[in-house]
């Protein structure tokens, strides 16, 4: 299917040029891996006056750890995340979530930044960024600002990013304590399906928990009450059964083409329990290896 909508193609050679273009005219859509944008152009859901390729901008590339902060450039693809020794060492949870996105051929192009800018409720990178307390560095001709990930997702396909801003990178401060994490994704089959529900849990050696959910609510979210309840506790069957009640209160499950409210609510409980147990077991050096399917 050809793209019928006509647009100009821009390929600025520096971040500065890209930002001036965005400041000077409206209707420009940035292009990273194109795995969302090109589908939307084909379907007539996006009709920009110009598409601006970002892939040649050196400022947006690269994965690095410096002064205890992990920086993931906006140009970094899910394939690069999965293959990166840095991610495996510092945040295997991120690789675990990245591995569930689409298929190899899509992951070779799809970026983490594009994933959170698209901000569909089923976005697989959302929950692990939430539990890692990531921040999104947004840059425009006006300057740079850090947006905490907890303030990023404002609704389905809606974020805190302004139209003249680009995502430069995502930053994660490495935890001081040892952590164990887990991402559990519910989908009908492996290899292409969007999440019906997604749960991440991160726990540190002082038993501080962070819990986040996606695809279940209109926007991915942290479950603060559940986290407070879990603090200092081991995830025994009894504790988790209590916690599940809080999870149910904190989420506002939706019905859509992928699943009903009832199914989502039921499965979220089961997934949360397995996810929390696995995260804790991993913290103790046990548990399923990262990447193993738990539902």
């Amino acid at each position: 299917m050809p793209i019928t909508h006509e647009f100009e193609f821009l390929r600025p050679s520096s971040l500065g040029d890209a930002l001036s273009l965005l400041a000077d005219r409206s209707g420009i859509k940035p292009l990273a891996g194109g795995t969302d944008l090109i589908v939307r152009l084909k379907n007539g859901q996006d009709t920009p006056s110009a598409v601006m390729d970002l892939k040649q901008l050196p400022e947006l590339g690269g994965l690095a750890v410096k002064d205890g902060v992990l920086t993931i450039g906006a140009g970094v693809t899910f394939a690069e995340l999965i293959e990166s020794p840095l991610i495996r060492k510092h945040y295997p949870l991120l690789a675990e979530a990245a591995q569930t996105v689409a298929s190899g051929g899509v992951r070779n192009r799809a970026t983490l930044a594009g994933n959170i800018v698209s901000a569909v409720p089923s976005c697989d990178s959302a929950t692990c960024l939430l539990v890692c307390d990531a921040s999104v560095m947004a840059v425009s001709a006006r300057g740079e600002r850090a947006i905490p990930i907890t303030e990023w997702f404002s609704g389905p396909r809606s974020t805190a990013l302004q139209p003249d801003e680009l995502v430069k990178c995502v930053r994660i401060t490495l935890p001081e304590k040892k952590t164990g994490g887990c991402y559990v994704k519910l989908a009908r089959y492996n290899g292409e399906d969007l999440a019906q529900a997604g749960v991440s849990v991160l726990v540190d050696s002082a038993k501080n928990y962070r819990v986040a959910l996606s695809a279940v609510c209109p926007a991915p979210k942290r479950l603060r009450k559940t986290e407070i309840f879990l603090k200092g506790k081991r995830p025994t069957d009894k504790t988790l059964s209590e916690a599940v009640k809080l999870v149910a209160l904190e989420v506002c499950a939706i019905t859509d083409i992928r699943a009903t409210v009832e199914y989502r609510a039921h499965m979220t409980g089961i997934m949360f329990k397995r996810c929390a147990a696995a995260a804790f077991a991993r913290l103790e050096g046990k548990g399923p290896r990262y990447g193993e399917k738990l539902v």
Partner: protein
Amino acid sequence: MKTEITFRLNGIERSLFVEPNDVLIDVLRTRLGIKSPKIGCDQGDCGTCTVFFNGKTVRSCLVLAIEADGGEIVTLEGLSENGPTPLQRAFADRNAFQCGFCAPGIILSATELLQKNPEPDRHEIQEAIAGNLCRCTGYTPVIDVIAEVAAKKTAGKNRKSR
């Protein structure tokens, strides 16, 4: 506005004029005579349009032709320039495909897998071709062939190193 782009296609430099909204798969098939990548879903789901772009498999239905400027594209045609690869020969010998519509995509995905990971286990093979839909085979013979070729490669290597 038409723009001239130049890229290497299966080892040969090609130049042509494209519109910004031309999609790579359409340009490959209708303007450059490259017919191995197929248009299945046209939305990134099925993997039949898979090509190598700068050394990595991508869905050419989700790439603008203009993005290929200065890059390198390899399709199945380029892979078998010097005769079929061991993987292709094994697929043919075992008659592992039926209609063959998915074959170019699966062969490229499997080629990428074996380049990155010469000793994949069955799970890794399944994972690597999970984005290539096949309506005919039920996947088992396809996975068997990839596993067989990987095992042969490894056996060959071990023999050499001894």
